[in-house]
Every structure is written in structure tokens, then in C-alpha cells.
């Protein structure tokens, strides 16, 4: 005890050590609040169920009546809340391919549904059925999408590395009356894709 004042400590004095302990204790006291960061992301998740392909006029899409080289906007997953259903992330371009690209057959192979959220900067693209176009075009920076695969072939989105050059898609099922249903998707780059991020072409 007597030599306490004369001995030189190895660099960290007792006082500094206790200060550090105090700081660490204060930090640890707040550690339980770290999961409170989960407050920030919105937890609401709509149920991904098998759903009818509901066209804007309210009817269910049917392979026998839906024209080829034609596109409509469909909502999936639909919540029933009109405000939430205007959400761009729930909007899909539902396309029946033009005949020369394989839209002849009355089965699911003639239909595509791609997320309307462009992979570049998330504007909403649209399918243009005019002759010489027959492709998806984004109004913001002019990215163009191939309707058969959903892969960008021109514009900024085409320059992004995979998977960010191919749109997320929905898959269909057909019932005996020719009505179309959406199969429950899996959001992942190796499955249906991630909206606004993309999908690997398998």
C-alpha cells in the first residue's frame, strides 16, 4: 500500500480502467434496446396465397378470352385496402405474348406477369404492343424489357449485373374452365425474384 504512489502503472491507470468499465457498463445497459431498431422496418406482410388473376374490370382472366399481344395491370398480393392496393410494389404487368413470340397456345406458356417496378430506379414500366415495339419500356430512363423472359435488353437496366437485369415474375395455374390463378410465389433471386432487385434466369 505504501508504494502505491511511487509505482508507475503499465499505461492504464486504475482510474482510467474504472472509467472504461463505467463506459462499457453504460453501453451494456443500453444493449437490450438494440432490438428496438426493429421498430423501423414495417412488419406488415400480406399472405402469399393462391389468388385469381383479377383484371382491372373485376373479372378473372381467362385464356380463351384474353387477347394476345395485350397487357393489363394486376395486383398481387391484394389486400382489399384500396390505399395499399395502389402500391407500386403490388403491381404487375400481366401480358399475353404476341403470337410470333409464343402467345398462340391457350395455356400458361402464353402468359407472363412481371413486376412493374423497373430494376434501374424503380419507375413503373409498361408493355407497348405497337408493331416494332412489343416490349416493356420504362418512362424514366428508357430501359427496355423482353416480354418473353423479363430480361432488360437496352437501357440502364440492361447494363446492371445479374440478377438485377431480370424482372421478378409470377407463375400461373390453369383450372378446367381456362381461368388463370397465381401460384404462391417465393421471393428470392433464385425463385420468383425480388421486386426492384431482380432474378436469376434459370
Amino acid at each position: 500500500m505504501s508504494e502505491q504512489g511511487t509505482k508507475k502503472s503499465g499505461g492504464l491507470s486504475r482510474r482510467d480502467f474504472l472509467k472504461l468499465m463505467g463506459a462499457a457498463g453504460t453501453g451494456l445497459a443500453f444493449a437490450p434496446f438494440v432490438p428496438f431498431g426493429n421498430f423501423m422496418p414495417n412488419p406488415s406482410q400480406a399472405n402469399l396465397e393462391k389468388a385469381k388473376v383479377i383484371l382491372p374490370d373485376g373479372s378473372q382472366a381467362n385464356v380463351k378470352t384474353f387477347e394476345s399481344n395485350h397487357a393489363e395491370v394486376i395486383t398481387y398480393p391484394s389486400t382489399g385496402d384500396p390505399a395499399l392496393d395502389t402500391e407500386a410494389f403490388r403491381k404487375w404487368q400481366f401480358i399475353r405474348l404476341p403470337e410470333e413470340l409464343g402467345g398462340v397456345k391457350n395455356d400458361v406458356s402464353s402468359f407472363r406477369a412481371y413486376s412493374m417496378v423497373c430494376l434501374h430506379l424503380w419507375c413503373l414500366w409498361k408493355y407497348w404492343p405497337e408493331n416494332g415495339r412489343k416490349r416493356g419500356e420504362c418512362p424514366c430512363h428508357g430501359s427496355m424489357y423482353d416480354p418473353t423472359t423479363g430480361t432488360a435488353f437496352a437501357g440502364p437496366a440492361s447494363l446492371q449485373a445479374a440478377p438485377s437485369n431480370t424482372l421478378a415474375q409470377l407463375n400461373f395455374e390453369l383450372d378446367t374452365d381456362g381461368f388463370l390463378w397465381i401460384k404462391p410465389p417465393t421471393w428470392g433471386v433464385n425463385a420468383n425474384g425480388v421486386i426492384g432487385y431482380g432474378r436469376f434466369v434459370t
Partner: protein
Amino acid sequence: MDASLHRRTGAVAFFYWLWDGLDRTIFTGIKFSFPARFVSPFGFLGMLTFVVFIILGISGALLMFYYQPMLDRAWNSVQFINNEVPFGFHIRNIHYHASNAMVLLAILHMYYQYFSGRYKIRNEILWATGVILGTVTILEAFTGYDIIFSERAELAISIAASLTTSIPVAGPTIRDAMFGSGFSDFVLRFYAQHVFVLPLVMLGLMAVHFPRFLVFDVPMVMAIGGAILLSGGVFPVDLGFKFVPTQPPGVTVPEWYLTGLYAFLRTQYDKFVTGVLWPGLFIASFLLIPFIDRYKKFSWKDRPIITAFGITGIAQIMVTTYWGFYIPSDVNIPLVQRLVVDPIFLYVVMILLVPLGFGFSYMMIKLAKESERKAKLAKDKGPKKVATINLSQKWINWLIVGLLAFQVFLNIAAYNAALTGMKNISLFFIGIILIVFAGFFHLYRYGLNQAKNAPPPPPVHIPEEKPKELAEPQIVPSKNPESHSLNDPKKEPKIEPQISTPKIQADAGINAARNFDFGSSDLKKP
């Protein structure tokens, strides 16, 4: 009832009491001056920016009474404000144009400080907080025009959200935490940020940013307010088209302070590099300037490299701002060709602007030095070439009466226009009223100065009453009121003149009420 002419009646005493109470607040630490004559507004652009911030706060609070931050209602509520709510059109236009004015004033403020080297002499913290404040101002303006949720707003939100997502590693998490999971969240959270989070951040930064010397020039504040209303009257802001997800929007460009960034985004290069890294580097270079600038002098003439750097930056901003706006109107060529900015072309121009900027600033410095030299030569011989307008007392009075009459006329016109539904014309007239008021106030101020410089009334002999020690020599009113405090006469012992000079009224304190000093310098305590 007999009115008391005594100054300190109950109400006045109460106000004096309040005013004295300010002694205990932070405000006594701030030197607040109301200039008594015209001073260049470049010196107090920051104060003007703050005034516009207050205007935005008030008009924004009023808009909050009606605005609904919901995906399917936002646009309709803005339409309701614009078309149905009495004076909603006025408030919305004031808010919109004031936001543009604030961004513009903040940019001008920054460049004035930049070229005059004011970030030196231990003002680095002021400069750094100012740069961050400017960035937050632009974010504030950006979130503001996004929550209308028109077509353009939706595109802007999607670009902001996807740019945030494009940040490596942390991007998607930041986006999820700050903006939420979808557009419904985006609108609500942009709103929360616009009306609360960002203004709070700005107020906090302002507390650090405010210097101790503030200038509040009433005419200039009025002129800025008038200009905001005037531009609202001439260019009333439109509503845009309501965003409908089933009808993809047309081609739109962002607000003018972001088209420069938009031009880079349109080059098709990686969105993180062009949309996040470039503006980040731009802001970082501004933050670092005080630590790079090692010149010992302040003037732009004496800091050629820094001046050239600034001029190159301005040139690049102007070129990219125009480039971002420019979209060929020919609808026959494919959209991608109309929208894509050739990256090689753009970047070559950006690089070419560097030698041009340096050459230009070198030329400017040469010319400035040359004219300085000439002015020095000319000072010795030749007449003074400062033109002044000298108005007599009579004409000042007539002009003030004329301006007042004009204001009355404008008031009636604005009221009539508002009654008949010509909203933007009434806004236009109110803008002119404010500008006329600015002129009015300036003329009044000028008149006061003239009166101060007027020759003293002829001397009238008055009987000597005061003891000799109190009869101090009369202080000559200084011509420049700002320097008034500087040349404070020192109380030096002075030898009394042996011969007594004739006394004039002013010496004995007669006509003290005609002391036109009020408003001429810093606020004085009674």
C-alpha cells in the same frame, strides 16, 4: 378620457419589462443590427435564408391542416387545398416558391462565403455545418415535392428509395428502416421526415451555424417575400397528374436543384456511383475546402486555385443542370435514345470545363487586378465617379405619399382579384405590395439619414445654465452609422476653450426628440 403623453404607461412599461427580461436569455449574446442604409444583401444572405425558412414553417404548418399523407389521398388533398380551401392556392404557392427561394438563397449564400474566403479565421465549423445544412435543405425540398404523390413525385420517390437500396451492403437495411417497405410507407415516412425530422435537424444545425452578428434588413426581407409571392403569381405551381399505377407516367424531370444529378443518372452508368457517390464526393469536397485552402488572404483575387475550383464547379453545375432538363421532344425516336445522356460526351465536357474554368478565373483575376491598378491611378487625378441620387426633403415626402397611394391601389386590386377568383393575380399584386413596401421603407430610411445630415438650425442664443464641465464638445454626427460605434469618442480630458462659443439649441438638448438615431445601429436598451 384624457390620454397621457407620458411615455411609460402601464402597457409600455410592461413591454419594457419584457424587453429587459431578455437580458437573461441567449439573445443578448447575439448582435442584431438593423442597417440604417442600403447594405449589399450578399453579406446577410444567410439571414434571408433563415427568414424564408420561417415563412416555410408557417405556410407548411397551415398546409398540414388539410394535407393527408396517404397513398391514394395525398394528391386529392393537395388538389382540395389548391382549388377548394380559401387562400389554399396562396398558401401552397407561397410554400412552393419559398422552398425554391430557400434553396437558391442557401446556394448563393454558400458561394458568397466561398469566394470571399469567409470560411477562414476559425469559421470552419460554421462552414461545415452550413454545408450539411444546405444538403439537408435540399433533402427537405425534395421530400416536400415528393409527398404530393403526383406522377413526378412517385418517380422521385422511387428513385430516392432505389438509390438508397443501391448503397452496398447496408443499403437495403437503411431503406427498410428509414423509408419502409413500400410506397404506402414511403409517402408517410417522407411526410414525417419533411414536416418533423428534417426541420428538427435543421434547427439543431442552425443553433450551431448562427454567427453572433446578425443583420436584419427589413426592406430586403420584404423584397424577398414579395419576390416569392410575385413568382407564385406569374408561375403558379401546377398539381401534376395524379399517380395511377395502372397508367405509367410520362417523361418528367426533377426540380431544378436536382437535374444536375439527374443528368449523371441518365448516363446509364451504375446508379450507386452516379447517384450517390458523385453527389457525395461533391458535398465532401465542399466540406474539405477550408482545410485545403492554405492561402493567407481572403479575396478571390488572391486565391487563384480556389477561385478556379469554385468557378469550374459552378460551370459544371450549370451545364449538368441544363443537360438534366433537356430531353428531345421528338416522340418518334425511342425513349431510351431521348433519355440517355451519352456518357463519353458528358464526361468529356465535364473534364474540358476544368481548363476552361481555370482559364476563365485567371482572366478574371487579371482583369480585376488591372482595373484595381487603374482605379488607384485615377484616384489621384480626375473626379470621383460615384453617382448619387440626391432627393430633397420635399420630394422624399411626395415619393412616400405616392408609394402609399400605389399600395392602397394595389391592395384594392388584390382584394378584387381574390374576390373574383383570379387567385394568381391577387398573389401577384400582394407580391408587388411587399416590394413597394420595401421601396417605401428604404426611402423612409434614406429620408431619415438625409434629415440627420441636414444643416443644424440657425443658432439662437440661450442663457448659459450648465456648469462648464458638462458642456462637452458636440460630437459631429458620423456619416456612416455602422462605423458610429467604432469611432466612439474617447472621454479624453479636453482643455476648455477660453472664449465661450455661442450655444445652439442642440447643445442644450433642445430638439432631442429629433434625434433620428433610432434604427440606425444595434438595438439599444432603453
